[in-house]
């Protein structure tokens, strides 16, 4: 019998075969987004808590190549290069080419601002699987209020044009905030005008060092409800998200994460280091880390945690990494996911009640 991709990925996840890896090239960024989880860049903003000081130098290029070799050997298929802004890494192109040579399906997470025509040409030569670009608003003023960089919206729009002209695949990603919740239709219109899908996410994460200041940007109930009404935006999953079930969170089993300093985490949200690739081979960390084992346990328990955690469980997702960061407990459902589930349930009920019999 033929095996579908989803069945295969589920089987691989059960066997802790990492299919997805995310590598943060750098925490440096040319934007200073108000809702960002990256605590390094806090330009124009009051810092909450101390600026995190890395205990080691970022991985050198040779160490990165070794990491890529290990990821390939472990069978990782999709490799996401992220940041910070990955294009600010001084060896970005060398890393991208080295990753392409090793046969990954490459996803590049970027704000797009540095993508000039020559950069788009080079991206097209290398041929990543996709670029995933953040869109913060439908207007200059809103996008710039979030990015805190003058001209950020226009530079992103220009980048979309360059990428479209070259036939590169782009997914737009919008974190829904109180500043842009009134422009979601406009954001959708922009994405439609380029022919790129857009995916909205109403959940804002804490800063990597556990501060709650990004949550000040949370959208209103009404802003979130718009996402789920059938006459509204009615968002679907991105190609890399699955409905609740075995694949909805593959933390520590089908997914792994590496920081610019070589720390291996269960995912970008689960901030505990399972080990450092400077000290141990990645495969050894992957197979022996108690932190990864705990992440896998929590992921397996997730359907029960959700079912027992809310009456709106049919609509609820759970991010154990965010819960760990916020509450110190990866099993406790996080307030924003509960809120989104409640809003989705309310939308569903009101639409069911309005249907003619």
């Amino acid at each position, binding site marked *: 019998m*033929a*095996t*579908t*991709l989803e069945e*295969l*990925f589920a*089987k*691989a996840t059960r*066997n802790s*075969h990492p*299919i997805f890896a995310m590598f943060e090239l750098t925490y440096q960024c040319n934007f200073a987004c108000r809702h960002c989880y990256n605590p390094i860049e806090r330009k124009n903003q009051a810092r909450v808590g101390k600026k995190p000081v890395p205990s080691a130098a970022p991985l050198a290029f040779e160490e990165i190549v070794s990491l890529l070799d290990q990821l390939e050997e472990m*069978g*990782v*298929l*999709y490799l996401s290069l992220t940041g910070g802004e990955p294009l600010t890494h001084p060896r970005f192109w060398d890393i991208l080419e080295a990753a*392409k*040579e090793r*046969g*990954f*399906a*490459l996803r590049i997470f970027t704000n797009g601002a540095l993508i000039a025509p020559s950069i788009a040409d080079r991206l097209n030569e290398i*041929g*990543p*699987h*996709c670029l995933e670009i953040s869109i913060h608003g439908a207007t200059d003023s809103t996008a710039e209020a979030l990015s805190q960089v003058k001209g950020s919206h226009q530079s992103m729009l220009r980048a979309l044009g360059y990428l479209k002209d070259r*036939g590169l*695949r782009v997914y737009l990603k919008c974190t829904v905030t109180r500043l842009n919740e009134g422009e979601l239709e406009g954001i959708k219109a922009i994405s439609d005008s380029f022919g790129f899908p857009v995916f909205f996410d109403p959940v804002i994460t804490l800063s990597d060092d556990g501060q709650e200041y990004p949550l000040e940007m949370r959208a209103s109930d009404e802003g979130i409800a718009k996402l789920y009404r059938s006459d509204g935006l009615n968002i679907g999953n991105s190609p890399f998200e699955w409905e609740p079930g075995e694949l909805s969170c593959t933390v520590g089993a089908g997914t792994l994460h590496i920081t610019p300093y070589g720390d291996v985490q269960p995912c970008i949200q689960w901030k505990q280091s399972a080990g450092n690739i400077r000290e141990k081979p990645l495969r050894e960390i992957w197979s022996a880390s108690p932190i990864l084992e705990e992440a896998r346990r929590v992921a397996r328990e997730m359907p029960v945690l959700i079912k027992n955690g809310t009456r709106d469980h049919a609509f609820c997702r759970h991010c154990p990494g965010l819960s760990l960061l916020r509450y110190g407990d990866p099993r406790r459902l996080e307030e924003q996911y509960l809120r989104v589930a409640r809003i989705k349930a309310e939308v569903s009920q009101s639409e069911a009640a309005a249907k003619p019999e």
Partner: protein
Amino acid sequence: MFDPKLYSRNPDVAWRLIEGQAVLVHNREGEIEVLNELGSYLWGHAGEPLDGLAGNISQDFDVTKEQALQDSEEFYQALVASGALQPVKGK
């Protein structure tokens, strides 16, 4: 007759063996192919002489060598058509 020496894996196709099955991601087109056990074997040995591969397949999959040869040729032709295999430059 399909000549495997004339074709190589397209570098724009990312692939990994996952749980014994080759998953091919066509980065430019966005298509994804999941190959079955036999297809994964052939993909893993792309570029190798068909005769030897057919001999191994006939032993492992309980088919005649002639049938294995024909199936392998058809499979590789399909991969050429999908763009997963491409002509070797200079040949």
